[in-house]
């Protein structure tokens, strides 16, 4: 047992030593890992941001407002309310009387609210705001609402939502394609870089075999080296993304809100996820790359 432990310790030591002594090659591996992760990060942030914008916008349009005819009886109100509550996909139903509507309007108009004071008669209608469980029920509910007697108008931003969903789907699909392609490219680049490292050390591997090193003993340091390169590559790209995105967030977020009334994904949240993803990818690619490129050298 003590012997195994020593061998294991040796492997780790050799891994670190190898990394330091092959730092020239290491810089190549690390920069290619970082470069790929950086591009991946930018694409990922882009997708997340657009996804976020779409989702936020969607929830804003995620309600249906209906306006009632004037002069309905209490029984009519009950009838309409019950019909709506029975529909599938309705989350909540809020009644807004024309008086409340006016109040809300006044609040919204702020300084100009005095203009509303002069009205002799409330021009608004009683209305309901229907919150949907999910956007998918919208169409059916809207068409059912139109058949209810006493409802004058149904306001729903169907077109906007449809377009948004379409755009979001395209972006998601495009993003997945780009990420997939990038992953392939990165595995290719990194396994090649490590192949160069391994080829350069072919002699070393050969010698190790003659001295009686087991395959595990030979593989170990290379894999640890690969993992270390992967980790450093990930760390470099995480730092660049962190500072880059924080800067971008600071300078763009407010303007973006003014334009589209949406916010970017806050950096702290995003960076944590990206750090986890990048570390996993870096380590995975490093280890896998070493294994793949070592395979053909071990059959002596």
């Amino acid at each position: 047992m003590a012997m195994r432990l020593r061998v294991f310790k040796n492997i780790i030591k050799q891994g670190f030593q190898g990394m330091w002594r092959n730092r020239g090659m290491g810089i190549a591996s690390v920069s290619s890992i970082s470069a790929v992760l950086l591009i991946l990060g930018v694409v990922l942030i882009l997708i997340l941001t657009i996804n976020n914008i779409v989702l936020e916008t969607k929830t804003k349009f995620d309600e249906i407002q209906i306006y009632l005819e004037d002069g309905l009886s209490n029984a009519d109100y009950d009838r309409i309310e019950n019909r709506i509550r029975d529909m599938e996909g309705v989350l909540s139903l809020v009644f807004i009387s024309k008086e409340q509507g006016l109040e809300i309007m006044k609040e919204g108009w702020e300084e100009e609210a005095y203009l509303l004071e002069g009205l002799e008669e409330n021009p608004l209608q009683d209305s309901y705001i229907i919150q949907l469980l999910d956007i998918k029920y919208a169409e059916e509910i809207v068409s059912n609402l139109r058949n209810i007697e006493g409802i004058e108008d149904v306001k729903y931003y169907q077109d906007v939502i449809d377009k948004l969903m379409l755009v979001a789907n395209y972006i998601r699909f495009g993003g997945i394609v780009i990420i997939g392609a990038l992953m392939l490219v990165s595995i290719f680049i990194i396994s090649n870089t490590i192949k160069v490292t391994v080829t350069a050390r072919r002699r070393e591997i050969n010698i190790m075999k003659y001295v009686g090193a087991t395959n595990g003993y030979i593989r170990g340091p290379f894999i640890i080296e690969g993992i270390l390169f992967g980790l450093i590559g990930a760390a470099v790209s995480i730092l660049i993304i962190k500072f880059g995105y924080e800067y971008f967030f600071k300078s763009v977020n407010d303007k973006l809100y003014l334009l589209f009334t949406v916010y970017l994904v806050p950096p702290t949240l995003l960076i944590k996820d990206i750090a986890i993803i990048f570390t996993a990818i870096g380590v995975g690619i490093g280890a896998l790359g070493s294994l793949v490129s070592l395979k053909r050298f071990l059959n002596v």
Partner: protein
Amino acid sequence: MIEFQNVDKEYDNNVRALVNINLKIHKGEFVFLVGSSGAGKSTLIKLLLKEEEPTAGRIILNNMDITKVKNRRIPYIRRNIGVVFQDFRLLPNKTVYENVAFAMEIIGAHPKEIRRKVPMVLSMVDLSRKASSFPDQLSGGERQRVSIARAIVNSPPVLIADEPTGNLDPDTAWEIMKVLSDINGRGTTVLMATHAKDIVNSMKKRVVEIHEGRLIRDEQKGGYGNEITSF
């Protein structure tokens, strides 16, 4: 110690590298393996190291039939054999000390044992002063002595030397022969493949000659050989 029983080796391209080899080497012997290039010396060594498998026959090393050993166990077979090559095969980015210690580290030797044994072996090959040099700072003879130190540091019962003097000038070659002879004197069986006629002739050791894959001569206190093989 080492025994070849009716060993044949045919490569994939139908080249018959070894034909019906029978050879027995006893513990503590010093044996020269001679023959022209391509005669089959290297194949014989490769079979001992299990770099190649024989087509037929058995090879016994340390009372074990190594032809039956599984691939996974090959490293453990090789630990019983120290190997020295013509081109030294040192790790270029490790110091002399590390190159030798390396052979002990991979078998999980105790660090104390490594610290005790490496300087001992280095002083045996007269390289104590060069312990912290890198291989490219050494002369050819010094490099070969490092590789010998590495080969014997784990005290293997057998030392195989494949043309260890091939890249060295005559004076340096004799230095190496003295080291090998010393090691043999301490009880290690030595099998040395060589083209060095002078060395074989003056050492007066057992000589085994291979010609076109066949063992044609096995002589105690022999010389390099006759017209067939010398050119």
